[in-house]
């Protein structure tokens, strides 16, 4: 098998839920050895999140855990005990990267803060992910995906102007923090490789939202007016938005320019539109959008989603089909690229997962199933810390592992 890009990277993973696990999943899928430290007995609380395989709650059968922990090793270790902490410090001395998403300050209180661990391993990159960051007045605020989404300023923009703002589904905001963390961590790792000096990376989910490209916050500084919820179609950028058609919905985007309008007319096969003074300029098209809709909606309902996708893309009109998850799984593009990946797991059997997020020509991503709780405890302690069988038995009896 081909080499993997991160085959020489050891990651100590103290994360739970989704933000941290998604970060370390990315590292694991590209070859890093990720040692996930879980509390003995219960493990990562995300093991208790549904949906579950066959709707039966089981710590090895939750979709969230199965997906966000591919390719990791599970080590159970009680880091609230002296022995557990001492083992963790030894592991940290061998690691290139440590990722944690505990409440800010919690690991420091256990003597496992970045200052201490980096003192004994100066090349360590210690990455902290949290809703609001390691400093500042909101540092200790309680948060969920939705509440930090609201604070980060994107929620205000999402939804209809005359209705409630809407959150994004699932755990996708934690994932946004996770991918930011993975990127920042890799930058610091490269620097550590060259200089021998690690770093502490502090990723705040709120800042990943407020600072992100889609937030376009500078418009406020330039224009002094807050952007509003635009709703399902944008004024003046047209046709643009989600439209019903014969068998579902399509998202269509056109550019403001003359060329964009020509392409729309070609997609519709209505060359007369180009000579119609009602639609001669962007301003005229804005003014007469009702007249255009009277032409456009009947055309839409006479065409299927796929026809509109093909006709639009053939004329370089941006079109996407609004898919449900079953349709995503059937889409010919993802199938052609063998994107979805089947993995065997001892409890849930063979299931289909999203594949590696990008393709590397020399060092492809490779998914391996999520670990059972404590599956690698013995392996990690024996291989990395040279524990003997007697040591292990003693640790087990004391409830440390």
């Amino acid at each position, binding site marked *: 098998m081909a080499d993997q890009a991160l085959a020489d990277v050891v990651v100590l993973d103290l994360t739970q839920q989704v933000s941290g696990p998604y970060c370390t999943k990315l590292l694991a899928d590209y070859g890093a050895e990720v040692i996930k430290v879980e509390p003995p007995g219960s493990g990562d609380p995300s093991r208790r999140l549904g949906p579950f395989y066959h709707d039966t709650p089981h710590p090895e059968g939750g979709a969230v855990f199965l997906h966000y922990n591919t390719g990791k090793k599970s080590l159970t270790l009680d880091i609230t005990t002296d022995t557990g902490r001492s083992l963790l410090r030894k592991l940290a001395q061998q690691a290139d990267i440590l990722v944690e998403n505990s409440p800010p300050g919690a690991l420091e209180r256990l003597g496992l803060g970045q200052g201490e661990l980096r003192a004994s391993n100066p090349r360590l990159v210690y990455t902290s992910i949290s809703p609001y960051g390691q400093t500042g007045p909101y540092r200790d605020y309680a948060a969920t995906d939705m509440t930090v989404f*609201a604070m980060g300023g994107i929620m205000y923009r999402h939804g209809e102007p005359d209705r*409630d703002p809407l959150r994004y589904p699932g755990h996708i905001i934690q994932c946004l923090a996770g991918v930011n963390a993975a990127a920042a961590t890799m930058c610091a790792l490269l620097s550590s490789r060259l200089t021998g000096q690690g770093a502490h990376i502090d990723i705040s989910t709120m800042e990943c939202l407020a600072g992100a490209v889609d937030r376009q916050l*500078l418009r406020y500084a330039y224009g002094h007016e807050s952007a509003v919820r635009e709703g399902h179609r944008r004024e003046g950028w047209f046709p643009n938005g989600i439209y019903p058609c014969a068998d579902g*919905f399509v998202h269509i985007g056109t550019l403001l320019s003359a060329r964009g309008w020509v392409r729309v007319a070609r997609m519709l096969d209505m060359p007369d539109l180009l000579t119609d003074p009602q639609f001669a300029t962007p301003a005229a098209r804005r003014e007469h959008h009702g007249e255009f809709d009277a032409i456009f909606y009947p055309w839409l309902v006479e065409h299927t989603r796929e026809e509109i996708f093909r006709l639009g893309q053939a004329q370089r009109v941006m079109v996407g089909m609004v898919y*449900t998850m079953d349709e995503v799984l059937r889409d010919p593009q993802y199938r052609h690229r063998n994107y979805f990946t089947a993995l065997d797991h001892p409890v849930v059997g063979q299931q289909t997962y999203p594949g590696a*997020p990008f393709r590397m*020509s020399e060092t492809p991503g490779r998914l391996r199933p999520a670990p059972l709780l404590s599956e690698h405890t013995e392996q990690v302690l024996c291989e990395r810390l040279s524990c003997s069988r007697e040591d292990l038995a003693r640790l087990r009896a004391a409830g440390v592992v």
Partner: protein
Amino acid sequence: MERLPLTGVRVISLTEVWAGPFATTLLGDMGAEVLHVEAIQRVAQTRGTLRPTPGTVGYPDGDPGERPWERIAGFNGVNRNKMGITIDLTRAAGTDYFLKLVQLSDIVIDNYAAGTVERMGLGYDVLSRANPQIIQLSTPGWGVDGPYRGYISFGSHVDAMVGHTYLRGYPDADPSLTSSIVHSDAVISSMAVFAVTTALNYRLRTGKGQYIDMSQAEGLMTQLGEYVLEYTMNGRVPQPLGNHHPHMAPHGVFPCRGNDRWITIAVEGDQQFARLCGVMGRPDLAEDERFATALARYQRQDEMETIIAAWTREQENATLLAQLQAAGIASGAVHNDEDLYRDPHLQARGLFQEVVHRQAGTHLYPGPYWRIDGEIPGFRLPAPCLGEHNVAVYQGLLGLDDAQYQGLLDDRLIGDTYLEGAELAGRDAANP
């Protein structure tokens, strides 16, 4: 920070609109030297129209000025910490200079439609001949091969085709009443940084460059894994929940005093619910059998939300936020732009930095936000003006003398002002 992490790494940014340009901005934040490539023959989409009407939103105080393409928030807010150069890549001489830069660079990133860089003569076969150690990343909406090769998209079209759009809608409305908001660019810009730094780690070990094909759809889909598995494991098609949650209740957004003011509240378990009732001054609700258990609260969440909304409606969301957080209840005010700029936490952490832009003047910009050893990397360079760093790159880096440089200007291979017709040409090749 004595040394930024990517000091010594050079990146060529052949990108437009959001996902690609912001990826190279993030690399610039981390210390890479980024060369953002544009052309005087072709106006990039986020540079805007060349003669906008005064009063148009997006320019400082609505004033487009003499050079509106250098005063537009949509470009200036996305392209910090990079140098701007121009090259006409439709001519062989331009491609030659591009390849000279490739020889001196580590990473080339584009976000055009699949096949575009190959048509420019800048595919990986060409680039890797010029520099075997080069890392090239292309990130079209749906990847570089397959039946959708060459298809164009904004992030919102990618969102639609991974199921995000469907799942983020109102549960009681059809998808045509879902907003046209865009999520994938925020994800892909960071993921591209992760991908190229991963490749740099491999190159450090082996000396080998490589090619990275990043389908924006496939990248984003890795953040919807539980939905994919819900379908593949259980055969169930996930449906939008709006602001509700699979098991937490109450979990939603509630109106507050003022126009379009809101607070989100998420409650898990009996104890948190009792604390919420305490903050509301309604301890009776915690005892009320209608809401006594998690299941009861889940089943009666509409009823419960009406009661909570009656309470929130009378108060400022900032006041509620402080009260709820003091009681340890997960909650967040729904911030708009003005709220963010005034937010004491973001100010304390230094998200905004005052920056002087040669054409746009002085403003507070959202800046780098990956903190290293407690510090924010600097906002070293405002978004470049068109061709602003041509001298630094062509003379400083490539070593052209004054006469050679003048030759490039005379040939219009480079320049700092758009040529006639650039606007019309500008709309064709992009796959933002």
